């Protein structure tokens, strides 16, 4: 169970922090330019954080007690390949889901 205090600190902190990110430049900084090296780092935040979050969940899924699981692993690989080929998240999710359910069915 998630602790209530933790939950509300995260909800409010994440909300306020995200708003400050959104408001920071358009609201406060105005037309002044940012140093290029900061913008360079900001460009890669999403691709730097999300894969690191997902990788352990793919290799060591909590649902199987951390054991490598063939249907989940194959579904992840199919999602990646289809995502790279089509550049379309919906199509990738579709293929990933079908692969996962097919794999789980075959694995019994």
């Amino acid at each position, binding site marked *: 169970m998630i602790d209530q205090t933790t939950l509300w600190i995260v909800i409010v902190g994440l909300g306020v922090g*995200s708003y400050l990110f959104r408001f*920071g*430049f*358009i*609201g406060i900084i105005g037309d002044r330019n940012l140093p290029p090296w900061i913008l360079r780092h900001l460009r890669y935040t999403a691709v*730097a954080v999300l*894969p690191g979050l997902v*990788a*352990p969940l793919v290799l060591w899924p909590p649902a199987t007690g951390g054991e490598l699981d063939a249907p989940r692993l194959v579904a992840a690989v199919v999602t990646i390949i289809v995502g790279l080929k089509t550049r379309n998240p919906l199509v990738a999710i579709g293929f990933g889901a079908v692969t*996962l359910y097919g794999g789980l069915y075959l694995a019994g």
Partner: protein
Amino acid sequence: MPRQTTKSPFWMGCRDAAPFLLVVGPFAVLFGVLATEAGLNVVETMTFSFLVIAGAAQLTGLQLMVEQAPVLVVLASALAVNLRMAMYSASLTPYLGGASLWTRAFAAYFIVDQSYGLSILKFEQNPDWSLQERLAYFWGTVAPVCPFWYVFTLVGALLGTSIPESFALDFALPICFLAIITPMLRSRAHIAAALVSIVVALVFAWLPYNLGLLVAGLAGMMTGAEIERRTELAHD
């Protein structure tokens, strides 16, 4: 066409943003369902979506709380996912910075992936647009996306735990994130950032408090930025 001033950019924005409902809707439902399964009630789940209005960061925060990570690690990791909003804000400033403070304060809340991505593209294509036309287009891209973020979060929260275990919802988050990340891998720098993030996250998975993810995020960002810098140097 003098009457085609502010109304048509708004509808143009609506039309351009409407297809994204297909992504935003299921993503919001997923958040609502997973939040409910993690023990959040409807008020908590809805407040989460209202205040943060960013799916990837919300799901990151939720996942880390489920893993019992300390509050500072949860906040830092989820905020890192949302750092790109600062970049969006910076890049919209030359186009919308002339609006009144209240308008900017209100618009800032609605800077999301879809409204930013569509708006910046249109603003670059239409340098002759007035501030009013740009704002109208921006609100047009917000209208079919953001309200549905709340609505579909609620749908997910109400569905909640009624979804049977055979749906393997535990793996919906990894599949969604992988599907969102892969189209972002546009350059060598993006690919390298993602690969470094994966390797570092796995190697440092033993670190306490889920600190491995923060180390991975930092390493990934620095990798992407450094490769971009070198690529630019090579082209100069």
